[in-house]
């Protein structure tokens, strides 16, 4: 009987670890516990309050205005790059390879040429493409400040101007197998640490919460962020946070799309079997789908209507 009661937590723990391996969304610390959000309850995720660290004029000047604060050099790439489609040309159907990222060789054929001939299509590269958009933005901002990554061997590839090269090598940086296509938030955090170490500047962290718009602008001085929207059963999704516009966020979805989303703070649960957690919803403007977050109680941060755990993985102060 005692044996049985001890088996249950062990099996639960192993289930959590298994989910972390196959979908974004779970932040599991070395000890196996869910990382608590680094913030006190009650903070408004939609903006207002929160900022407490004074910022210099130089830091503030990194935002474009009082209400617009984006990574303006962040590329908007698509994981569909290199897929084949049929189109009409002069009355004939022709099969063409999508070249939407502007690479010399589109993503899928490029990856095939790098020893992955078994890759027939995207098996789930959202984590890699989102991270690559973030990392390329970082490199461009460093270059604007006169900093070069040429001597940082593990991230020097970011200086390459070809999107396919950058995305493929980013897969290596975040430990993703191109033919398997899975990444975890913790892998993004580790990669951000590698980037911070390469320049000696910046702090990488992971949180199961959404920072407020004011935090993005002030406390974190326009951090670089990927958002892992969990949902182990649904497969999860990663997007890159491009910045803030008024009270909203702008996300770069790795399917080549960009949307305005708003974050709403939910409730704090203290007696969950998974420990403390926060509920946030990320929803599109005007879709009316936000109300669906109330359908399932508790653990329901959303992006659109994809339920699951939200992980914000960020590099600040770089």
């Amino acid at each position, binding site marked *: 009987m005692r044996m049985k009661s001890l088996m249950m937590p062990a099996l639960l723990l192993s289930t959590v670890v298994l989910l972390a391996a196959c979908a974004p969304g779970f932040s599991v610390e070395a000890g196996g516990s869910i990382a608590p959000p680094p913030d006190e309850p009650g903070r408004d995720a939609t903006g207002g309050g929160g900022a407490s660290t004074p910022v210099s004029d130089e830091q503030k000047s990194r935002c474009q205005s009082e209400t617009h604060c984006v990574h*303006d050099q962040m590329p908007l790439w698509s994981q569909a790059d290199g897929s084949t*489609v049929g189109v009409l040309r002069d009355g004939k159907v022709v099969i063409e390879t999508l070249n939407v990222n502007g690479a010399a060789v589109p993503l899928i054929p490029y990856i095939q040429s790098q020893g992955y001939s078994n890759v027939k*299509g995207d098996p789930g590269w959202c984590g890699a493409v989102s991270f690559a958009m973030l990392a390329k933005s970082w490199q461009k901002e460093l270059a604007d400040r006169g900093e070069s990554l040429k001597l940082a061997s593990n991230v020097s590839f970011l200086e390459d101007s070809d999107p396919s090269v950058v995305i493929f090598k980013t897969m290596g940086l975040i430990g993703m197998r191109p033919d398997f296509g899975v990444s975890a938030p913790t892998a993004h955090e580790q990669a951000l640490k590698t980037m911070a170490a390469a320049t000696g500047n910046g702090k990488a962290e992971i949180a199961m919460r959404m920072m407020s718009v004011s935090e993005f602008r002030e406390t974190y001085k326009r951090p670089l962020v990927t958002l892992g929207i969990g949902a182990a059963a649904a497969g999860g999704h990663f997007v890159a946070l491009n910045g803030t516009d008024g*009270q909203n966020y702008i996300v770069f979805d790795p399917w080549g799309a*960009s949307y305005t989303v708003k974050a709403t703070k939910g409730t704090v649960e203290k007696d969950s079997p998974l420990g403390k957690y926060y509920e946030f919803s990320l929803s599109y403007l005007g879709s009316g789908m936000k109300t669906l977050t109330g359908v399932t109680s508790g653990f329901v941060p959303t992006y659109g*209507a994809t339920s699951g755990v939200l992980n914000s993985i960020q590099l600040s102060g770089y």
Partner: protein
Amino acid sequence: MKGLTLLAATGFILALTLVFALRARVIAGKDKTESVPAAPLAILKVPIPVSDGVHSPFPSPERKTELRSQFSQLAQENVAVRTQYELLKQKLPVQPESELIAMYAAQVLGRSSRPEFQELYLGLMGEVAFESPRVFDVLIASADKLRQDPFEHQVLLNLAAELNVPPREKVRLMGPTLVQKFEISAQNEVSEQSASLVIALIQLRKAGVAYQDIAPFVQRGMEFTSNDRRANDEFRVRVTTYYPDAEF
């Protein structure tokens, strides 16, 4: 306590074993499909003539049926997908391209890294690419309706970016988003309609549209805020963020 730790460790190892077993199965499955070698890059880039007919059966009827079956599965699993699809089907004219537009909008609410979703998305984009001129016509005819809802407005902009039409045609769909009063409150909140301005600028820049092609829209947009200095300044900031060469 030691026993618990041991059991936890055993559970962890079991989980890892299962992960590797599943991966091995996936890889083994892929190996089976590798008997046909990947096409060389050069071949992939060469257009393949299929038919002389303008109404060629492409994508095939079977593929179209399969795509709709995949979408139906997603809609069954996700009430938001289903609801958005039905909303747009009611709003758009009754013709085949409207279904593609409704499917495109609805799938945004059900995105994931599942292989089933990748297949659905790529199939959908394949059909959108093929039907681009007709999808474009339906979008032009329905744009005013779609711009009334901020989510559908942004779907319109992102779908316009995906269409296989020249950049100047895309300006016809995205440019009007710039011709509206930019609204921002004293609390620094941007109105839901005005939020789409940035999405339009992002996609116009990505499509390679030159500033001179959007300049008439920008000038007309500026006129809406000529009596509101702050809104006018914020409008300019957004334009120059994505088009640094903009002249006012």
